[in-house]
């Protein structure tokens, strides 16, 4: 136990040194570290509870993803059956599936095969998975098309990926510092913005789907008439921006916001009111030109997220593909709308399910508290160890100090996030790291009492104690692992420091303490153990 070859000793010291070196980038300012090579730039990230900032957890509305898919299937069914000139009745979206009844029994098999052709094979990482994205079944002339679960899951995943991109663009436009936007689970997105104190504007920007489209206003009846009776088949009643304002608008979309190539906030040349100037791409511009040419003198509606924000009358055809949206805008709201239009529409609405914001005052207080606790705890433990075990207490203190340095090194290497519970974890690890040494020393004391010589007692102490150290630390490690798995945010930070601390403790107990004692024994050649 006390015998170390030179190689082994060197390897141990080198490992400890390298791990500790990873701690170094934390002490230099960002600007200096930025010039170092990539592998040397890893450093600990301060959690939001220490540096202040906002964290928003957004949920993608999966129901709307489902609905859109079903609507697309519905339209495909219509198209296919019309092309094949197969009469049908009762086409409906029902219970998560599209149902359609084929009138003539003879047509059923043709209809079935044509509709089955709508199902696309799904592809996985290694090519086709052999599954299809649509289940088509038939019973008594009623054909049911159901999107399969893997297909929906895939669409949700795509929607989340797309949302992340759009959020990234919107957040960048707001000029926020280093936001972190990550997928969380199947259908959630975690947006963390350090330093953001009031997330109200951010929440506004992320909460809007920003689906813009241009449609014609339906003049066949007034909105009030449509409300009283039934709106016509291909129009719908939409709210305006003011309370109680309503418009009857055609369902057919002339040009959609997806064709926008730019949007900028500006001021109307005549009224000096804030407006949003927009420009279409070439196909959008063509469609816009055609629509405005065909409808001079009639009002068209600019619809944002199913609300009419403006319904100007087309005075002259707009051939240049550019225009202006005016309405009740303030400078800020015009700017925000321009940002939303530039970034693009979200594929599905986002809801905020969790929000945590920490102000800089509290953040700094937490850092101070953490530091004080750490120093106080360390001081108490160091003094206690010296008083109880003397020289060996000093060895234990050195080992624990290197242990803590290694914890920071590993955390830096992992770019881990340090939170206040994380600091608590480190303080606790100091308490428990000492235990490994205590186990060894008490065992040595016992062996000495039983009559062994100095060196034999030390040797026996180490060998007997190490198995116990392993067992006891593993049980705490299991608890830390479970906590990591179920925890979020600050609690996860605690689990990480606890887990890393246990690993480094095992390393230092098995190697460093032994090494220090071994070299002391070799150098001092004690006949008595000063313990």
């Amino acid at each position, binding site marked *: 136990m006390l015998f170390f070859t030179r190689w082994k000793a060197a390897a141990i010291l080198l490992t400890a040194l390298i791990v500790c070196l990873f701690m170094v980038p934390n002490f230099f300012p960002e600007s200096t570290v930025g010039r170092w090579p990539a592998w040397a730039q890893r450093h600990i990230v301060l959690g939001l509870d220490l540096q202040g900032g906002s964290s928003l957890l957004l949920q993608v509305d999966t129901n709307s993803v489902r609905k859109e898919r079903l609507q697309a299937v519905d339209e495909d069914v219509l198209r296919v059956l019309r092309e094949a000139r197969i009469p049908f009745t009762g086409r409906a979206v029902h219970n998560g599936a599209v149902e359609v009844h084929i009138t003539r029994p003879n047509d059923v098999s043709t209809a079935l095969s044509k509709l089955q052709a709508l199902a696309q094979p799904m592809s996985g990482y290694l090519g086709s998975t052999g599954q299809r994205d649509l289940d088509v079944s038939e019973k008594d002339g009623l054909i049911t098309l159901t999107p399969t679960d893997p297909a929906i899951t895939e669409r949700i995943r795509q929607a989340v990926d797309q949302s992340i991109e759009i959020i990234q663009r919107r957040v960048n436009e707001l000029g926020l510092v280093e936001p972190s936007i990550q997928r969380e689970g199947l259908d959630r997105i975690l947006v963390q913005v350090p330093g953001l104190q009031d997330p109200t504007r951010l929440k506004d920007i992320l909460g809007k789907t920003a689906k813009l489209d241009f449609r014609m206003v339906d003049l066949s009846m007034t909105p009030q008439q449509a409300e009283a009776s039934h709106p016509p088949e291909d129009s719908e009643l939409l709210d305006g921006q003011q309370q109680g304002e309503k418009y009857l608008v055609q369902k057919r979309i002339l040009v959609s916001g997806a064709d926008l190539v730019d949007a900028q906030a500006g001021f109307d040349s005549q009224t000096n009111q804030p407006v949003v100037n927009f420009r279409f791409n070439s196909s959008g511009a063509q469609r816009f030109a055609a629509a405005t040419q065909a409808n001079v003198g009639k009002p068209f509606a600019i619809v944002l997220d199913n609300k009419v924000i403006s319904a100007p009358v087309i005075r002259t055809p707009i051939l240049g593909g550019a225009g202006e949206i005016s309405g009740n805008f303030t400078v800020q709201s015009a700017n925000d709308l321009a940002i939303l239009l530039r970034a693009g529409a979200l594929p599905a609405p986002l809801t905020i399910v969790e929000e945590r914001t920490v102000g800089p005052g509290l953040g700094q207080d937490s850092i101070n508290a953490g530091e004080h606790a750490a120093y106080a705890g360390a001081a108490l*433990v160091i003094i206690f160890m010296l008083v109880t075990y003397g020289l060996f207490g000093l060895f234990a203190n050195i080992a624990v100090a290197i242990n803590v340095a290694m914890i920071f090194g590993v955390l830096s290497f992992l770019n881990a996030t340090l939170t206040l519970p994380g600091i608590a974890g480190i303080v606790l690890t100091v308490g428990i790291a000492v235990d490994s040494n205590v186990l060894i020393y008490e065992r040595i004391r016992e062996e000495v009492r039983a009559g062994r010589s100095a060196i034999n*007692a030390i040797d026996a102490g180490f060998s007997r104690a190490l198995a116990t150290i392993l067992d006891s630390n593993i049980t705490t490690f299991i*608890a830390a692992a479970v906590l990591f798995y179920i925890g979020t945010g600050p*609690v996860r930070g605690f689990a990480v420091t606890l887990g890393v601390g246990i690993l480094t403790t095992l390393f230092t107990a098995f190697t460093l303490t032994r090494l220090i004692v071994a070299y002391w024994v070799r150098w001092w050649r004690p006949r008595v153990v000063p313990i």
Partner: protein
Amino acid sequence: MRLLRIVPDNTKFDFMRFRRISFPISAMLSIVAILLYFFHGLNFGIDFVGGTLVEVQTKANPADLAKMRTTISGLKVGDFQLQEFGAPNDVLIRISEQPGGDQAQQAAIQKVRDALGDTVTYRRVEVVGPSVSTELLSYGTIGLVMAIVAILIYLWFRFEWQFALGAMIANVHDLVLTVGFMSLTHVDFDLTSIAALLTILGYSLNDTVVIYDRIREMLRRYKRMSMPDLLNASVNATLSRSIVTHLTVAMSLLALLLFGGQAIHSFTATMMFGVVLVGTYTSVFIASPILIYLGVGAGRMGEVEEPEPPPAVAAAPATVPAPARPAPPARRSRSRR
């Protein structure tokens, strides 16, 4: 230099004798704790029941709680609580979960922000909607159960099944008493509390495993010593280590409790209770004697036992001051208790 010896060498305290008292006491305390949980309840934080938590610092010093109360009740956001938190101009506002799903929570916090306006700076805002809170609660409970099962399996590998079961009973008992403590003191029960419970589980198992390890070693060495004697010997042998470690952990926790600030106060208080008070007690007075009841070492008749002499005993003893040669253990002729 005289070193500090908190526990004298060669203690021979009879711990096992107390098992006839400690088991009933523990059973009673556990029942009390369970009753407390069901009738007194835990002070569930917003992590588990949803709602909004806002910590503000008012510009006016001290804060005018009455005025804030009227302002907020005017917003019609349902049940809420206001309390001073640390400094006299620090106020903690807690609003219960709004009906209407996640969007309703956002609407509520916006109302509060608008109403309080410039009169406060926000130290901290936390809004947890119903979807997340139910998840956190179920994850928390599942996590605890998973940890218990995982550790049980691990102990089963390393020791015999009686040891695994004994450790589990002792440590679940720890958790039950800690939950009772949390109910009694009404500390905030949120995600950090689950962290505390899991850590307590880990550390008190730490303790139990050390004693079990020694018991296992003694079972191999002294094949005919009676169980109570053997358990006593094991506990006495590890007593010094246990006391020292518990003191160091207590010192770390004390530092955290005194300096760590309000944010982790409930966490550290819970840990202190769990690890230091309950953990020590159960490792010695529950986890060890329970092995007798589980049938470990059945058939030991408690005969006179002479330990094997340690190998390679050198001529001169090894500590300062030099003690006399250790006397052989006192012969006991009492039969197994």
